[in-house]
């Protein structure tokens, strides 16, 4: 199935925006002076947010399919991103003293993301959606592989920032789909999704540390060097109440500070939001 057909069937208002309208929404990214709005997305995949909606809008899917197709879409994106990053030579040229380390990290992550694609394709079988055509410039906003002359140093900074945004999004997106996989096939889909979810979290931690940040997310902070337009990736991470328990009230001292209380829990992301973020990088 074509990705656009898939997205179209799940689009709440049947609105697939064009590349140009996507470009219009972009704000500035870092020093580029161009635009990238990961936050404001005009359409969402309402159907992916709940099984009930999926059942009414696309009865052709089995219960596990919508969550896993979303997962496959995100894995396609990540897998291609890391392959292109490694092929570009940007890390070797701009990584400086960290180049060897960064290349090894990207290679290990690349291996996992490609394996995730294969694993999900095997799981979904012939129903697997095809890979979209990705545009990692997001309509000319970024140049992470230095294909358009931004220069290796800026490309490297973007290449790291995009990796962080993709990994932190991946963690939240898998978490957001866990409930939709409950009870199916005696938990087989859920367990596999959780096994991918924690690998995405390992990746996120390492990329963040490579960028000089903590491996975990404090409040809804993006961290240095991530543009404000990527705030959607982190919105909601500041939550401190879980199952009705506000964890800042459970004691005194450093473990219950706002900082530690938000770091200690990652928050889920809806299918709508995850799709909206991925869609910025989907050309067709």
């Amino acid at each position, binding site marked *: 199935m074509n990705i656009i057909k898939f997205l179209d069937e799940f689009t709440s208002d049947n609105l697939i925006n064009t590349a140009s309208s996507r470009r219009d929404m972009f704000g500035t990214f870092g020093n580029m002076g161009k635009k990238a709005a990961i936050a404001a997305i005009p359409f969402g995949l309402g159907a992916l947010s709940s099984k009930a909606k999926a059942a009414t809008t696309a009865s052709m899917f089995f219960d596990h399919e919508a969550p896993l197709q979303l997962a496959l879409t995100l894995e396609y994106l990540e897998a291609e991103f890391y392959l292109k990053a490694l092929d570009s030579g940007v890390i070797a040229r701009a990584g400086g003293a960290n180049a*060897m*380390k960064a290349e*090894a*990290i990207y*290679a*290990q*992550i690349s*291996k*996992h*993301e490609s*394996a*995730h694609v*294969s*694993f999900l394709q095997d799981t979904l079988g012939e129903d697997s959606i095809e890979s979209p055509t990705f545009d990692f410039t997001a309509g000319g906003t970024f140049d992470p592989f230095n294909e358009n002359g931004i220069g290796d140093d800026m490309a490297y900074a973007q290449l790291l920032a995009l990796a962080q945004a993709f990994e932190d999004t991946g*963690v939240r997106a898998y*978490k957001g789909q*866990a*409930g939709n996989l*409950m009870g199916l096939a*005696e*938990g*087989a889909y*859920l*367990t596999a999704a*959780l*096994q*991918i*979810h*924690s*690998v*995405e*979290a*390992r*990746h*996120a*931690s*390492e990329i963040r*540390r490579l960028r000089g940040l*903590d*491996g*975990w997310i404090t409040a809804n902070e993006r961290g240095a060097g991530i543009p404000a337009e990527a705030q959607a990736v982190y919105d909601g991470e500041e939550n401190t109440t*879980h*199952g*009705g*328990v506000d*964890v800042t009230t*459970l*004691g005194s001292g*450093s*473990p*219950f*500070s706002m900082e*530690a*209380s938000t*770091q*200690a*829990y*990652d*928050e*889920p992301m809806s299918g709508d939001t995850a799709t909206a973020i991925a869609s910025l990088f989907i050309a067709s």
Partner: protein
Amino acid sequence: MKNKEIKVITPRPSKGKDRRQFLKLSGMAIAGSGLLLACNDDDDMGNVMPPDATFDLGSGDRGVLNYAYALEQLEAEFYTRVVNGSYYSGASMEEKKLMEDLYNHEVNHREFFKAALNATFSADLVLPATLEFDFGDVDFNNRDSVLTTAQLLEDTGVSAYNGAGKLIETADYLVIAGKIVSVEARHAAAIRSIRGGEMDDYALFAGDDVVMASTGLDGALNPSQVIAAAGGFFVTPFTAMELP
């Protein structure tokens, strides 16, 4: 065998060999010893109560939450001993900050499970808050000993939550477990990253020893496997008769 009963009896006080075996665990391998795995094939017995005062984790959501509470008590106690000492010899500022973060997060997790369990179940159905631990051979003054143990605790925690997800019956609890497991995975990667940097093994943060290279999948273990692996640290006995 439908209902496998796992009875954990941890001999006290010190079984260095068992902990060494635990420390040899890498990801999915299981080395159980120092505790008794008692399987009961009988499905017909009405009496599944453990002898006298030994606490059983229970089944379903309660069983999983008690199980998580036990693991979080273990992790919190470990980091409490790290930060309440003078850390380990040669700890850099960055590493002290890292250990303090892990301490903060694990203590928070522990207190969350205590609060969540007590809000839902009567006190006699909640794992005691005062489990005792014996870290035996771990040298809290030795950097390698602390970091190696931290890595194994975090990796084991990840596999434990991954394996327990399918046992959870309430979606809200599943999401909460998901909120915690990814932070455990972030911890594991950070510890591994520090250790890997010194070995020029820059892939160790998600190394092939813990993430299967062919599938890209992390570990997932049943409670009985995890309890067998970490059992050497638990001094206070408890059972997990109704968990797989």
